[in-house]
């Protein structure tokens, strides 16, 4: 039996449902009762219950694409800041996708402290030690562009349903975007004015993430900025 409506705003400890529902996220079970554990929107999908959080830090999960900043190097790899309580570990072999003889090769030529890269979370163990990989196409060190940080809880909104928001952002502005689940977004564009417009749009999405019709408003805002010309 359900005690909340779909998309209802819930608070920690609020009774969501009773019975054999499957908990996806943001809730916990006590006996047959299911309670919310965070402030968020209840998302009911058949037998699945989820609370979409409105706040919170990024917690690494296997398979996530993240944008990290190298904060340290060691003899076989690098340590990356992930805008999270937990740092990421990247080994040379997971960057180059080949065996590396550390006795012969100096790995410092591949990455340096301060470099930004797109990586995928390969594994997270029970002690929250994070292993990254960055060898696949589309991953790896990034050059140029602008790095923006927003709240990780708002990232699903930046992507939108089936990527709709992301498509809008890219097609209207003419910029290329790379979105990390950890709340970081890279923007590349030839027109600096449109890059800044995308930054504004991202901040707008962050502010108004839980409102409806957001994609249309973002499109309108970007088109307005675009038509205002280069003055």
């Amino acid at each position: 039996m359900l005690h909340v409506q779909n998309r209802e705003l819930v608070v920690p400890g609020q009774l969501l449902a009773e019975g054999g529902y499957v908990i996806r996220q943001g809730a916990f079970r006590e006996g047959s009762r299911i309670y919310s554990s965070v402030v968020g929107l209840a998302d009911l999908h058949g037998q699945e219950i989820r609370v979409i959080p409105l706040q919170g830090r990024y917690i690494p999960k296997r398979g996530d694409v993240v944008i990290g900043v190298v904060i340290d190097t060691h003899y076989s790899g690098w340590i990356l800041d992930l805008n999270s309580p937990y740092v990421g570990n990247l080994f040379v072999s997971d960057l180059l996708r080949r065996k590396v003889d550390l006795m012969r090769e100096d790995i410092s030529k591949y990455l340096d402290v301060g470099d930004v890269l797109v990586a995928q979370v390969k594994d997270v163990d029970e002690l929250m030690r994070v292993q990254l990989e960055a060898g696949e196409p589309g991953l790896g060190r990034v050059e140029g562009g602008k790095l923006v940080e927003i709240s990780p809880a708002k990232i699903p909104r930046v992507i939108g349903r089936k990527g709709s928001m992301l498509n809008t952002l890219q097609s209207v502005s003419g910029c290329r975007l790379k979105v990390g689940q950890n709340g970081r977004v890279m923007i590349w564009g030839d027109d600096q004015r449109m890059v800044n417009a995308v930054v504004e749009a991202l901040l707008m999405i962050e502010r108004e993430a839980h409102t409806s019709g957001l994609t249309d408003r973002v499109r309108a805002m970007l088109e307005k900025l675009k038509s205002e010309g280069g003055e």
Partner: protein
Amino acid sequence: MEKPERLIVDGKRLDGRAPDELRPLRIKAGVLKRADGSAYVELGRNKILAAVYGPREMHPRHLQQPDTAVLRCRYNMAPFSVEERKRPGPDRRSVEISKVAREALEPVVFLELYPRAAIDVFIEVLQADAGTRTTGITAAAVALADAGIPMRDLVAAVAVGKVDGTIVLDLTSEEDQWGTTDMPVAIMPRKKLITLLQMDGHFTGEEFRQALSLAFKGCEQIYEAQKQALRERYSVKREEGE
């Protein structure tokens, strides 16, 4: 201020409240921009700000727990929060309150989800008028929820006491100073579990039971206000967007 002759006149207290009445309560969530979560609470003349940071990497590293996060709590009174300037910095009293506040909040937080991390809670008393530890816990619980930290429930807290032989809810500083008993109580309202219980003074067994049930009633009202504050934080923004 001198001791008034009577603290309760015709069943009304000095500020005109009934014995089972709370002071005016106002809670606002999300007041600090740079904190992960925050809350501001006014209870009568108490003004308290709570800020939550984290979960974040634990420093110093040797305090990390490999299987769970660590909740750290700091209760601090501003030098200007009381009539006579308080010497700034932690003292015996605030170290104790930091500890009991931490223990009052720990049972609701899913700490085991964040091994090796730390969650920092700061309770800053800007203006004090008795009951700052309970009001601080009330504020901290809202701030924790505002930070998006998974919790089993909120924590609501209030003090009860005995003044002029009457059991009263939510003591003011005059009632605290000249009353016979002061008992702060914090509860997890959903399951009605007590997470903080202290007592200064004495009650008979019957008085204690009566006081405790009064505290539960007070906490219930505070709990509703806490939930309301969390909901308001987001519904206000929703209207703006449309």
